[in-house]
């Protein structure tokens, strides 16, 4: 039985290094902790019913690309880059018509890694967008509003909503590694 781990940078980096050597127990413990962290990370940035899918996609990507983690570097920035990449994939996927209330995740807990998380957070990524782009991406791609609803709520024409979503996603994909 693996002892419970804390999700701090040093512990996860150590587990990841062990995982790269083939240590299955360390790897399982790491993935458990990463899954929990990802749920917090994606909170309010993806429709609640899609969080599990997205977290599982990131875990599979982490597994497939685990050799790309450089043991000399920090773990969270690497994980966040992969998480952002997969998150954008999900944003691009068309799930218009879904209407979901974004929930307040009660499982979210503040940890000692708040500074790191803030630096790699999805909010920081959204701040790079023009307000009009961020607004319609949130409405259509995250909350699941239709183009018409987003148009009505923002005052943008329907074609402008589409253009802003397209341009916003394109810009986000170029900023995946951006920290500030």
């Amino acid at each position, binding site marked *: 039985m693996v002892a419970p781990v804390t999700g701090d940078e040093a512990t996860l980096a150590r587990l990841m290094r062990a995982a790269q050597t083939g240590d*299955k127990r360390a790897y399982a413990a790491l993935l458990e902790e990463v899954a929990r962290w990802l749920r917090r990370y994606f909170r309010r940035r993806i429709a609640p019913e899609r969080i599990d899918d997205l977290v599982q996609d990131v875990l599979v990507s982490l597994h497939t690309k685990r050799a*790309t983690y450089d043991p000399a570097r920090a773990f969270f920035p690497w994980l966040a*880059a992969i998480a952002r990449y997969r998150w954008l994939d999900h944003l691009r996927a068309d799930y218009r018509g879904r209407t979901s209330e974004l929930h307040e995740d009660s499982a979210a807990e503040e940890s000692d890694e708040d500074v790191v998380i803030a630096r790699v957070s999805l909010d920081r990524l959204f701040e790079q967008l023009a307000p009009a782009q961020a607004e319609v991406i949130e409405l259509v791609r995250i909350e699941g509003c239709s183009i018409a609803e987003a148009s009505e709520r923002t005052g943008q024409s329907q074609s402008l909503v589409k253009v802003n979503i397209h341009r916003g996603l394109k810009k986000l994909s170029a900023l*995946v590694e*951006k920290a500030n």
Partner: protein
Amino acid sequence: MNTPDMRSLIDELAEDSAPVQPMRKGRGLAQALAAFVVTVAVVLVLLGARSGLMEGEFSAFFVVTNLLLLLLGIACTLAVVAMASPRVGAEHDGPRWAMVMAAVIPVAGVAAVAGHAGPVPYHWDEPLCVLFGLIAAMIAGSVQFRWLKRGAPVSPERAGLMLGTGAGALGTVAYGLSCPFNSVIHLGLWHAAPVIVAALVGRFVLARYMRW
């Protein structure tokens, strides 16, 4: 709290985990350097060195062109190797400045053509520099392409652009050791073209293979 589905996936992934060799930056750079050395060797063995290369008989613009292209190739190679291991906070601005500096080469070429009195000198085999430069770029860039394919570039279009530009620059530098021409017009046009073509191929063709 992780769901049963999540736990099941985690168990499967953990069971499937085998040791992997981390993609360290140093190893990527060493492989890229080896590929460049091989490219230079292939050019010199198959096409031979330009006359006067060892004696220093070449124009100042030949030196400037190849140094700028070498700088561009190194900057792009560093970025490509780093992009395989993504991380939030990574900056890949080096190639941008190197591109701006290397833009001097075609600008000088075009300016020389525009300011040339009388017919612009042209030799039938000058366009071959583009072909040979691109072939050399394929050799120099093949290792970097494989590195990126194995890696996890999170900006595939940018990675493709860096790969193409860097490979084009290094390939042109390697081929330049064999090219007999010295003029600003020749170097500014026919040695800039392979870099531009390779950059476009990288951005619009190779980038598609960078997705994962």
